[in-house]
């Protein structure tokens, strides 16, 4: 069975500091991978998606970047955090060629 893991579970960071969030999917080869952001009380906003290693497409950047260094790994990062980056970051995956997306447990980020 496939499992999706996100790290860290939660972070408190200072404005201007760097950030790196990770996502790993196990048990499924060549999945499509996605990053979402959800402000507190807000809707889900897709940020990036990737259909293969080394290839990432931006939907909405929000001064963030994403990379896919391995088939099963998706990284979200920024060199300088803003207050507006606070929220819930969700990684999702879908089987190759399919549309249904399945979400990971998420990372809660608070920027102070």
């Amino acid at each position, binding site marked *: 069975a496939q499992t999706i893991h996100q790290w860290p579970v939660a972070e408190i960071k200072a404005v201007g500091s760097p950030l790196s969030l990770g996502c790993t999917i196990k048990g499924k080869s060549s999945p499509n991978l996605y990053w979402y952001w959800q402000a507190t009380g807000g809707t*889900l906003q897709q940020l990036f998606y990737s259909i293969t290693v080394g290839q990432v497409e931006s939907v909405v950047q929000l001064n963030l970047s994403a990379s896919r260094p391995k088939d099963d790994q998706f990284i979200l990062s920024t060199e300088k955090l803003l207050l507006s980056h606070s929220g819930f970051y969700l990684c999702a995956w879908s089987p190759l060629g399919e549309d249904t997306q399945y979400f990971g447990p998420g990372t809660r980020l608070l920027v102070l």
Partner: protein
Amino acid sequence: GDSVTQTEGLVTLTEGLPVMLNCTYQSTYSPFLFWYVQHLNEAPKLLLKSFTDNKRPEHQGFHATLHKSSSSFHLQKSSAQLSDSALYYCALSAQGTGSKLSFGKGAKLTVSP
């Protein structure tokens, strides 16, 4: 472009009453429609997905029917339970793209005794 319009904001119901959350869409393609449910402090989970052959998907007492003539995929349940209290999102995927899921703004359903 593709978009979803759904019941938004707060929806308050008494336990035992029927649930109806509306969802309409605009899409250039023949899309897949989804309902996701997000309980407090949890990640969204897939609740229902439309079928291509007009079958009606059902899960946990919820059902939704894709009506292409009216571009709708309304979520229904005959009798609300306290445990149904959650955020509900309607989402659309343009068939075959595998790249973008467009979410509605979400409806917060609160079921009271």
